[in-house]
């Protein structure tokens, strides 16, 4: 199978859907000729023209709102928000409008839109360009939330998100763009709401999302040498959340570490932990559920501080060992 970069796989997914359905179009800041701030839409402007790869003013509320309106009228917009941090500027349109239209209109409207953007720290972009908070959106009924960790998943999930009839928040960790992985040439879809066991193991379950999947797999690789067999489960979508796969894994291993990129307080890991503790997996727990997540601080600029703000491979190794004690 050919190996591709995450960013290229994502672009392939966008391109295939634009070819498949003429209602699909991209809008956002600098998505046209420039190809997007991170290069996700590179080349699409040339291929599909300015109508379908639409540069917008620096107006996040208008971008999100226009996506909602267009989606209400049968289009399938994919709105790019340059940094995930700027989702907050588009909050009303996303949360009060797009998320609620269907329900408050009595189940009549459809809002098939995707709003995507790069999140996460590790690039020295500091507090306003480094946040990860997909869990915020998972709190709002009506939204779906996706956070792919691999090139394979990002392509399959962007396609599923575009085809979904609901507003989908698509969170890409910016450090993942340069991660390589196998992506088949033939068409495929990764359904929303289906977790993936990224590595099978019997001693302990690590539930990790987005960039943390990569770090958890690296931790698992290192621990293998010490005879510790780690299972890594990637929820892939926060909403809908596939608790069954997580529960089954925990029932098998009896121990679980949850690793998030978001700040720890009220993060999605808390939801997963509560889901485990209140499920049939409870009687299989052999150690307290452990959470590793970002500190409750704005992301600092200094590279060493920045590194310590979110879990790294060594933190995950330590967390696993603590839980296996």
């Amino acid at each position: 199978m050919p190996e591709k970069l995450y960013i290229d796989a994502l672009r392939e997914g966008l391109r295939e859907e634009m070819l498949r359905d003429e209602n699909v179009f991209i809008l956002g800041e600098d998505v046209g000729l420039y190809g997007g701030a991170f290069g996700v839409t590179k080349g699409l402007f040339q291929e599909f023209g300015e109508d379908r790869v639409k540069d917008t003013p620096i107006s996040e509320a208008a971008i999100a709102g226009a996506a909602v309106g267009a989606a209400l009228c049968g289009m399938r917009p994919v709105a790019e928000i340059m940094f995930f941090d700027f989702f907050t500027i588009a909050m009303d349109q996303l949360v009060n409008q797009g998320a609620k239209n269907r329900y408050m209109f009595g189940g009549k409207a459809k809002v098939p839109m995707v709003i995507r953007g790069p999140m996460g720290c590790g690039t020295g972009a500091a507090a306003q360009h480094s946040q990860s908070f997909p869990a915020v959106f998972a709190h709002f009924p009506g939204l779906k939330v996706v956070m792919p960790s691999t090139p394979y998943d990002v392509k399959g999930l962007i396609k599923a998100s575009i085809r979904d009839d609901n507003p989908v928040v698509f969170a890409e960790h910016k450090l993942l763009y340069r991660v390589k992985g196998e992506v088949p040439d033939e068409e495929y879809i990764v359904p929303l709401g289906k977790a993936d066991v990224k590595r099978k193991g019997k001693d302990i379950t690590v539930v990790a999302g987005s960039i943390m999947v990569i770090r958890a797999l690296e931790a698992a690789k290192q621990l293998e040498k010490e005879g510790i067999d780690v299972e890594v489960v990637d929820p892939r979508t926060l909403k809908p959340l596939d608790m069954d796969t997580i529960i089954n894994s925990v029932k098998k291993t009896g121990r679980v570490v949850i690793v998030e990129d978001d700040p720890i307080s009220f993060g999605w890991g808390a939801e997963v932990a509560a889901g485990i503790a209140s499920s049939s997996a409870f009687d299989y727990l052999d150690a307290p559920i452990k959470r590793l997540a970002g500190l409750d601080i704005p992301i600092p600029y200094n590279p060493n501080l920045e590194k310590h703000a979110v879990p790294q491979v060594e933190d995950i190794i330590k967390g696993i060992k603590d839980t296996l004690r």
Partner: protein
Amino acid sequence: MATIVTMPKLGTTMEEGTIIKWLKKEGEPIQKGEPYVEIQTDKVNLEDEAPESGIMRKILVSEGAVVPVGKEIAIIAGADEVLPEIGEEKTKEAERQASQIKSGEETKEQPKEMEAFEGRVKASPAAKRVARENDVDLSKVTPSGPDGRITEKDVMEFIKSHKIKATPVAMKIAVEQGISLETIQKAPGERITKQDLVPKESEKTFPAAETQKVIPVTGMRKIIAERMTKSKGTAPHIYLTLEVDMTKVIELREKLLPAIQARYSCKLSYNDILIKASAVAIKQNPIVNSSFLGDEIIIKQDINIGLAVALDDGLIVPVVRCADKKGIGEISKETTQLIEKARSGKLMPDEYQGGTFTITNLGMYDIENFKAIINQPESAILAVGKIMKKPVVIGDQIVIRPMMNLTLSCDHRVIDGAQGARFLQTLKQILEEPLEMLM
């Protein structure tokens, strides 16, 4: 250091034990692992092995006494060691330590004291589940997890080691005589000792003749007395009787007898057939398989049929688990073994606990008809009488048929007359057409 030996908990239901015999006298040296006392629990007689080596310095309880679990019974210590005071002083010491902790001193000992204060065993949910499933007393399991937490692995190891735990002498004898240690039954946590493998000397002695025999109400007798009184006192019993034509059961037994003998090396009894038939009838009348818990009635999933076995000095009810899922041959083999173990006092707790319905048969004593007391927490018991040839009217003919009386005692809080009657009727139909059991 002096070791205060307390009454061990030798079964999950054990609350007190009777000191049958002190195997060590005061002043005698004693080795760790050596049996020093014989204790009767509610079900079995067991020897307790010394937790430490030393001299049996003080026996605190005389033979025949009934002692609650956890109460001091003896002190093992060095020959010249000053013995600790038992009772009040110890409590004071604990209080003194507790007050120190409260005032913030000696904080190092806090976790240990807190555990004692809380009186709870710290175990993971998984460990608790495995313990529950295997009837393991978690307080006996050694924790390996952080902060003294018992993990699933600890319980698994406990179960494993408990199965084949034996003193070195016992292991040697077992190897020499080709005895499989797994066939020796001990209470949870107990090691197999030499005494388990060779007949006990003490059993060969004869008691002195007396004009009037005084039997202390202890152990099994006491349990029977308490349970039967409690059952009659709390459960309003109703009794339902009917007569069953056993012609076809007799035919069936005769047909199956040689095959089961050949395959399972046991003799198929009417009780075996009754167990199977009752299990099938219960499946159709699940209310019979229940427990009354005050606010709720629990209908049990598993159909575990107990069979009352008379002993010289009491009775015990070994249980055939999931009888509805077992074949008659299998049941027969199991009851044969259970009865043998029951009579030799070798039943394991999980072989006499967890019953959901009981059958008691006094047919062999020529009893035609009787009413049994419910074996709580079950809700019904079936009393079986003798099979007797009787003239009965079939069609308009008087014919001679082998008839048997069945009397069901039901706890009316759970089972109404009609529900009990339906169960009995189902059972009668099955016994009169035993091939129905195959359906």
